[in-house]
């Protein structure tokens, strides 16, 4: 059986890649996809921990995370479409009306 730390480290690597994507990219759509990568990494950690503790809580929580992610994507993409209609761009550096 594969040690649980392998799964935790893989989850950590995926989470880090998602974080770097959020920091580096400026297209709002790709920032959203990076958030999905981070959510997936956390899901992997949940399932791995549940497997090694012989518990089903991990899988139940993953289902709740999945629902939240779906809701987040629906609302977030609607927001991006609304911003694009108003300003003609999805570059997050251009959307700086509230910036001091």
């Amino acid at each position, binding site marked *: 059986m*594969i040690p649980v*730390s*392998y799964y*935790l*480290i*893989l989850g*950590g690597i995926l*989470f*880090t*890649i998602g*974080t*770097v*994507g959020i*920091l*580096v*990219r*400026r*297209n709002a*759509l*790709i920032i959203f*996809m*990076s958030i*999905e*990568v981070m959510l*997936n990494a956390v*899901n*992997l950690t949940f*399932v791995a921990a549940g*497997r090694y*503790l*012989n*518990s*089903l809580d*991990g*899988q*139940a929580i*993953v*289902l*709740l995370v*999945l629902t939240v992610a*779906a*809701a*987040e*994507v*629906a*609302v977030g*993409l*609607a*927001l*991006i*479409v*609304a911003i*694009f*209609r108003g300003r*003609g*761009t*999805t*570059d997050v*550096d*251009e959307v700086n009306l509230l910036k001091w």
Partner: protein
Amino acid sequence: MELALFLSVGAIAILGAVGVVTLRNAVHSALSLITNMVALAVLFLMLNAQFVAIVQIIVYAGAVMVLFLFVIMLLGEKAQEGQERRPGQRVFAVALGALLLAEIIYVAQFNLLPGLPGKATPEVVARSGNVQLVGRFLFSEYVFPFEVTSVLLLVAIVGAVVLAKRKL
């Protein structure tokens, strides 16, 4: 054998995630993200979580990514990134990411999993099936969060329609 499968699928997952971050074209990023999600579904199967693996493919790789591709196509070519304004942004982000990764690996190698072992050992799961057990678990101990998610989804539907519609 199991380790070789884990390493190769993990490498595919990491490559998919790197593709999401690095590829210029948003459609390519979305396809790369689908690769990442399918690889994660295989990992869920290896972790004896069949239900989550199938849901991952249906909901994420199916529904969510179709929604993403719809929006990418809807916004079209103009939804590209402009010129980079902050020259040090990329270096700074990668340095912060390396720091985060070092922290995570430092903690993960202690093999810490606090909590008592539960009852769902592989033998119990094999006897009645993963989907049956997860379903029963969701509708007994997690029934309140499960019902709350239905309200959340309803709010998300209404919110998405209100935000995306031109005139109400």
